[in-house]
């Protein structure tokens, strides 16, 4: 067996990195393929309101909020049923993957007049 010279040690390392990257990419590719991708539903935050205010989605789908205001907003479950977002500055997004069917209400904890509803169906 040939001893590892510094040169082919580098080659082995590079090969290993490429191989690892390939695994990561293929896994990401699996997740991103049409059959398994969670459908993304967008809720726009503009003029201190969530639009649409009520959204109906299937269980397992993704919901993404994007803040178009020059004011920070948050997305907080009223019944603490999903993780709360950090404060979203202008153009920042926040996503959740929906779980069990049901009706979920949420609000902006900075401007609590802003409320919205998520209806999750099977």
């Amino acid at each position: 067996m040939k001893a590892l010279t510094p040169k082919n040690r580098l080659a082995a390392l590079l090969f290993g990195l490429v191989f690892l990257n390939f695994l990561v990419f293929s896994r990401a590719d699996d997740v991103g393929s049409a059959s398994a991708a969670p459908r993304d539903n967008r809720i726009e935050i503009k003029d201190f309101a969530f639009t649409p205010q009520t959204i109906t989605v299937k269980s397992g789908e993704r919901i993404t909020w994007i803040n178009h205001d020059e004011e920070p907003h948050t997305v907080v479950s009223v019944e603490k049923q999903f993780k709360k977002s950090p404060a979203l500055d202008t153009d920042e997004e926040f996503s959740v993957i929906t779980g069990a069917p049901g009706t979920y209400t949420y609000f902006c904890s900075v401007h609590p007049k802003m409320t919205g509803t998520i209806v999750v169906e099977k």
Partner: protein
Amino acid sequence: MVIRKVSIMKDHDHILHNLEQDGIDRRGFLKCMAWAGTGVLWTVSGGVLVSRTLAQIAKAGASSLAATDLSFLQISDSHIGFNKEANKDVTETFKIALDRINAMPTPPSFLIHTGDITQLSKPEEFDTFDEVLKSCRTKDVFYVPGEHDVLNDGGKLYRDRYLDKVEAKGSGWYSFEKNGVHFIGLVNVLNLQAGGLGQLGDEQLEWLEADLKGLSADKPIVVFAHIPLWTVYPNWGWGTGDSERALGHLKRFGSVTVLNGHIHQVLQKVEGNVTFHTAMSTAFPQPAPGMAASPGPMKVPAEKLRSMLGLTSVQYKQGKTALAIVDSNLS
């Protein structure tokens, strides 16, 4: 409930319609706003608005302040970290406000900052604020938090930095005495409930009741908090849901002055012995209630911006029931 009629002396405009019995009708309010925006100062004494121009204030100068027992200054809504079109350099306008304070013939005894020190509660934003504030000759500053100061940690960072001078309770409320005036700093930006307004909460209200208990009814009271303690415009969340309970505890006092920020414009209402007043921001203006799609930052022509930013000077003279409140802009 006694409602005093507020007369705006400058143009001999009087309240014509006061449908909500708040002492301000729509027309009077808009005139008042236009007036505040054009750089005229106004003083309130005994529930009557009196205008004074900058020139008159300057002429009166130190002599008018000499007999004053206590003068302090309210500064609000500096929003350090905001960098959008409404004002791309809020640090600079904050500096200008401090320059104005440093230029006063008689420096105020202390400052009150009524919240929204920062835009996003970031440590570096608080750092910038603290660094710039060092240029202020008046060193004593009392704070209450705005919702922008407590975004991600329930106000921990804010409390660690700004409450070392006071004996704060709960989420950061406190009281102190200066020259016979009782000051109360309240927190109404935490644990807000879906669909609701600003909130004080049971614990704070019970503390307030106990804090006021031993005080004589002729003791002047100054209450300060970020969100208005009167319902300015509930659709935009400009009010505090349980403020009536706080005001109930304050009812027996002969002179109560309530100072708020949050709405980035001067608004005032006098109700019985209570004067409610909101200050301008040092960062950017916000629209008059209901006059825009949302209460977001209002963009105005660059040359007009400083006329819509400002600070509030408050003077107390012993023996007078009402404190004199003077707003001045940065133009």
